[in-house]
């Protein structure tokens, strides 16, 4: 995406959205299924067809002899012809088998499952906080466009957005590293009961979450502000004022609900951005989630793990997007028109 407040025109419901409800849902779900399939195929070919196959990737900087490389290749079934490999892949996928990590030697699906909940926790909490903060502030900034509050908010958000997420994380680490843990998700010597463990996790969560919030919140602020500005000249606001509504009620009961619609769509479209942010934050803080796993796969050129991660991450974003499309269908009465 380009500027964080990319024109809300991106969020117009497509013409097909205005047709019947069931047809719309089916269309969107069908589209998502097709996209998922494309991702499955893409993940496979990306790791193999492009210059470099997984084994070559893995052994690039090592000093393994040709025989050992060949043995490795055979071990992972990568010396079979390409179509055969593809069939293996698809069959494995149907059983939830994503292959074995070249580096860790464990099933990829296991690694991913283990790393799943830390990422969900981090992204979930950060997104929630960012949305609440960003939408609240963006609304007030846009309503009083040009005011000191607005100028400050916009400038602050732009600056936060311009600084690379990982750098913000590193600075925060350097500054607050003595008060909060800087690595991982749990201290090894925390008592195994639920409450101390939960508190320890939260304690570890603070810095990475704060970092992710910084950049997400800036994004949502700018998007909400931009959406609200688009509504500012609407006639129905004059009608609301003519009825005798107080200014803040005009804003909250009329302008904001209308401005929220493109905002919600944009938030969902930009989930890929959130995933990218999570990857860098987890790398900085060694937060044991999918992002850190990706980083490790990247540094070790672990082909199968990369393939699996691409599949899972891209697939997750696609599914969330589908949810976003369906959500819009539910909350926008114009899209719902049957």
């Amino acid at each position: 995406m380009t500027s964080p407040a990319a024109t809300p025109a991106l969020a117009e419901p497509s013409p097909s959205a205005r047709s019947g409800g069931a047809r719309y849902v089916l269309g969107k779900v069908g589209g998502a299924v097709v996209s998922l399939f494309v991702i499955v195929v893409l993940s496979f070919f990306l790791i193999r067809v492009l210059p470099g196959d997984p084994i070559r990737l893995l052994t690039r900087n090592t000093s393994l002899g040709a025989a050992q490389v060949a043995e490795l290749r055979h071990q992972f079934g990568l010396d079979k012809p390409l179509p055969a490999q593809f069939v293996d892949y698809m069959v494995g996928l149907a059983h939830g088998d994503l292959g074995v990590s070249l580096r860790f030697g464990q099933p990829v699906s296991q690694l991913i499952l283990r790393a799943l909940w830390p990422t969900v926790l981090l992204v979930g909490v950060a997104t929630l906080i960012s949305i609440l903060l960003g939408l609240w502030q963006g609304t007030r900034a846009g309503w009083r466009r040009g005011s000191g509050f607005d100028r400050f908010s916009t400038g602050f958000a732009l600056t936060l957005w311009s600084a690379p997420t990982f750098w913000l994380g590193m600075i925060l680490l350097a500054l607050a590293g003595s008060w909060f843990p800087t690595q991982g998700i749990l201290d090894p010597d925390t008592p195994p009961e639920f409450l101390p463990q939960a508190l320890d996790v939260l304690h570890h969560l603070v810095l990475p979450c704060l970092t992710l919030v910084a950049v997400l919140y800036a994004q949502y602020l700018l998007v909400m502000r931009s959406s609200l500005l688009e509504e500012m000249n609407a006639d129905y606001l004059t009608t609301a004022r003519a009825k005798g509504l107080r200014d803040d009620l005009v804003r909250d009961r009329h302008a904001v609900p209308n401005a929220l619609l493109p905002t919600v769509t944009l938030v969902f479209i930009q989930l890929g951005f959130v995933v990218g942010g999570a990857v860098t934050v987890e790398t900085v803080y060694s937060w044991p989630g999918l992002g850190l796993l990706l980083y490790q796969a990247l540094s070790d050129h672990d082909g199968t793990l990369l393939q699996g991660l691409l599949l899972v991450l891209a697939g997750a974003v696609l599914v969330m997007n589908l949810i976003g499309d369906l959500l819009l269908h539910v909350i926008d009465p114009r899209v719902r028109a049957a």
Partner: protein
Amino acid sequence: MTSSIAWQRRRAAAGRVWAQFRTDRGGLIGLAVLAVIVLLAVLAPLISDRSGLDVTHATGGILQPPGNGFLLGTDESGRSVLLLLLWGSRISLLVGLAATLLSVGVGTIVGVLMAHFGGWAQAVLMRVTDFFLVLPSLVLAAVLSTVLTPGIGSIIVAIGATAWPTTARLVRSQTLAVESRPYIERSWALGAGHWHVIGKHVLPAVAPLVFANTTLNVANSIITESTLSFLGLGDPNSPSWGSMLHNALQTGAVTARAWWYLLPPGVAIGVVVLAFMMCGRALEAVLNPRLRER
């Protein structure tokens, strides 16, 4: 004969754009900042000694704070941080610009094809565009640049391959708008071919907004490049701002609170990105009056 009139008009329009742009203080500041940074980057070979980047030629102590002739201290190999910063700017700017040109190029082509030819070409390309728009671009770019031998070239390709969808959508909507105008119909009636209409009418009309969009795209590309470098996907022999921070993290500069090493690259990235953003927003506001009051 007619083309010179068209060019005269375009020059006049460009003059008006500049005059309007000048009134935006943010845009002017951004432009000034960029001019300075680009100048420094270009002049780097003239004002500094490249050999200092070579680890074997490093003369300073390890992770030294500013002093002893090192204005910004030294990195984990004893190299001058200031030197790294200066030469890093070349990489960051180069990759940012090259990647943007690639993505804008691809995006423009796809966008024009979609809008101009319509029909199933549009249907297919639209699905592809939406698909790429939604994908987590960083993940895809990271995987791409790993699979292609890691280095600057693969980063450029990776960014170009993932950042084109927004340009494509913009170009598509603009092309649709332009092609619905009467003079295009007249062009068709006079027997113009596809390439004539696209080359002489659509592209010049679409160019200004694409240019504004490009400026914003560069901001994005620079951030993506720095992130990819930070993840270790850059070229170890050509340090960029992102790879400086990668090294800083890997070698414990963070825990050592080596702020002279941690601050400058990030600040540099932020400043350049912010400058491009201010310019881009100012340009967009000039070209699209609806956005003027942002």
